[in-house]
C-alpha cells in the first residue's frame, strides 16, 4: 500500500455496526457466565483486600478503604475488559479464524472492521465497569445516581484501552505477545495509578510519570465522582483519556492496514 493510503485517516461507513452486531450475537449466548465472571473476579479481590487491608488501614482520604479501592476497581475492571477483548478476542478473529479477511471481501473497509471491534471492546468494558458500579451502589458506597453518572467515564476508559489494545493486537505475533503487554505495561500501570493506594506520598518523578498513564486519569475522575465531587483537573483528565482513544485508534488503523492490506 502506498504511504498516503497507509497513513490516511480512517475511512468509515455506518456498516461498522454490522461488526459490532456480529460480536454481540456471539456474546449473547455467553452473557450469563461472562457477567458472572465480571462480577465474581473483582468481588473476590475487593472483599479480600477491601475488608482485609481495610481493617488495618482504616480510612484513606476521608473515606473507608473499601470505598477507595472499589472506585479504583471500577476503572481497572473496565481497563482489563477492554484490553482482553481488543487483544485475545480480536486476535482470534483477525488471525486465527480469519474473520476480518472474510469481512473485507464484502463492501467493508478494514477501518470499518476496526471501528466495530473498537466499539465492541468498549461495550464489553462498559459491561464490566457497570457490574462494579452495581456492587459499589449495592453496598451503599455511592448513590445509584452517582454510579450512573460514572458510566460515561467508564465508556471513555473503555475506548482508550480498547484503542491501545487494538494497536498492540496489530503488532502481535501470537497470544504470548500479549502477556508482555499485560505484565510489563498494565500491571505497573495499575500500581502507579492510585488504584490500591494514593500516589501523593510517592517521589515526585513517579507522580509525574503517572500523569502519562490513562488509568491514573480514569481513577482520578471516577473516585471523586462516586462521592459526589468533580475532579479538580477534570478537563486534563478527560483530555488525556480522549487523546489515548483517538491517537490509539489511529495507530491501530495504520498498524492493522500495514499488517493485513499487503
Amino acid at each position, binding site marked *: 500500500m502506498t504511504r498516503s493510503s497507509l497513513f490516511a485517516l480512517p475511512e468509515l461507513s455506518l456498516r461498522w455496526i454490522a461488526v459490532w*452486531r456480529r460480536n454481540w450475537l456471539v456474546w449473547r449466548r455467553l452473557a450469563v457466565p461472562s457477567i458472572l465472571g465480571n462480577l465474581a473476579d473483582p468481588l473476590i479481590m475487593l472483599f479480600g483486600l477491601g475488608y482485609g487491608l481495610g481493617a488495618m488501614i482504616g480510612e484513606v482520604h476521608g473515606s473507608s478503604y473499601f470505598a477507595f479501592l472499589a472506585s479504583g476497581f471500577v476503572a481497572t475492571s473496565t481497563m482489563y475488559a477492554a484490553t482482553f477483548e481488543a487483544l485475545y478476542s480480536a486476535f482470534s478473529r483477525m488471525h486465527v*479464524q480469519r*474473520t476480518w479477511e472474510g469481512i473485507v471481501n464484502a463492501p*467493508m473497509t478494514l477501518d470499518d472492521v476496526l471501528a466495530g471491534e473498537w466499539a465492541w471492546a468498549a461495550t464489553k468494558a462498559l459491561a464490566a465497569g457497570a457490574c462494579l458500579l452495581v456492587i459499589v451502589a449495592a453496598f451503599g458506597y455511592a448513590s445509584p445516581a452517582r454510579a450512573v453518572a460514572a458510566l460515561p467515564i467508564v465508556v471513555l476508559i473503555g475506548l482508550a484501552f480498547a484503542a491501545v489494545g487494538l494497536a498492540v493486537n496489530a503488532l502481535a505475533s501470537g497470544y504470548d505477545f500479549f502477556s508482555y503487554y499485560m505484565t510489563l505495561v498494565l500491571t505497573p500501570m495499575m500500581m502507579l495509578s492510585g488504584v490500591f493506594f494514593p500516589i501523593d506520598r510517592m517521589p515526585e518523578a513517579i507522580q509525574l510519570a503517572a500523569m502519562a498513564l490513562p488509568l491514573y486519569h480514569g481513577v482520578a475522575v471516577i473516585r471523586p465522582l462516586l462521592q459526589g465531587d468533580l475532579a479538580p483537573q477534570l478537563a486534563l483528565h478527560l483530555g488525556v483519556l480522549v487523546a489515548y482513544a483517538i491517537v490509539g485508534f489511529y495507530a491501530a488503523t495504520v498498524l492493522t492496514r500495514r499488517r493485513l492490506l499487503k
Partner: protein
Amino acid sequence: MTPAALRAEGLRKSYGAQEVVCGVSLRVRPGECFGLLGPNGAGKTTTLKLCLGLVEPDAGEIELLGEPVPARAREARRNVGVVPQFDNLDPDFTVAENLLVYGRYFGLRSEEILRRVPGLLEFAGLAGRADARIGALSGGMKRRLTLARALVNDPSLVFMDEPTTGLDPQARRLIWERLRQLTQQGKTLILTTHFMEEAERLCDRLAIMDHGRIVTEGSPRELIAQHIEPHVVEVHGPAVAEWTARAKRLCPRVERAGDTVYCYADQVEGILKDLSAEKGLVYLHRAASLEDVFLKLTGRDLRD
C-alpha cells in the same frame, strides 16, 4: 461491444524487491466463466486481491463492474461475491447465522437475509442444516456454505480462489454443477485453480499465469489446439532410458520428466506399434489435455 465485467490493464505489484504481478491485463465478459491458472506462487491470488481493491497496485488500471478500483472498490464489491482460498466461516455461529451475519456486511436488512437463507441452503445442498454448527460440517459442506455465503448479496460476479482445493471427487463434482448453474443464471465467474480438469470443464476462457505474467489466453480447446499435438503417449518402465533415443526418431516432440517419457504427436500409430513389442515398458495413450499445455508453458519443476 458490451462493457467488460472486469477490465484490468498493466497491473503491477511488488513486495520488497520481488515483483509478483508484472504487467497483467485481463478482460472478462459479463456472464462468462473465466479461469486464472498457474502454479503456486504465480501471482493468481494477488491478482484477485488487486481486482477486489484489497491490495493497491503499483501500476495499472482496474475497472470492476464499471467502478474504478481501488478508488470505488467498496461500491464495486456490493455486487461481488468472494469464495476465498481458505475457509473463514465463522465457527462461533450456525450455518444460517453465518449467512445472516455476512449479509449484514452488505447493509442488507435481517428480514431480507432470512428470506434468502432457505434458497441459499437449498442451492448449497445444506437444506435442513440451518442450525448445524460449523464444526459439524464436512469439508465439502463448508465449501458449499462458503459459496452460499458469497451469494448472499445476489452478486452479478463471483470471485473464487481455488474453490475445490482439498475436496474429494464427489464433493468437487457437486461444486462444479453448482458453478454451472450460476453461469446459467447469467452470473460472471472468475476462478483460480491448479486443477486443469476443473478449468477444462468449467471455463469458457482462461489465462495461464506464471511468474506474475500471463503466458497465454483463450478457450481450453483453442489453447490445446494452439500449443499441443492432439495425441500423447506416456511411457515409463525399466527400459525407458534406451527407448527414449528410439522415440525421438518416431515422434516429433519427446519430453522426459523424472521416470516418464511424454511423446506428443499428430499420428501415434508408429509409436504404439513399437511400444507393443517392448516388454520392459508401461504406456498410456490419451488425448492431449489442458494439463499438457500448462506443463509445456510453465515447466515441470516443483514450485513450493
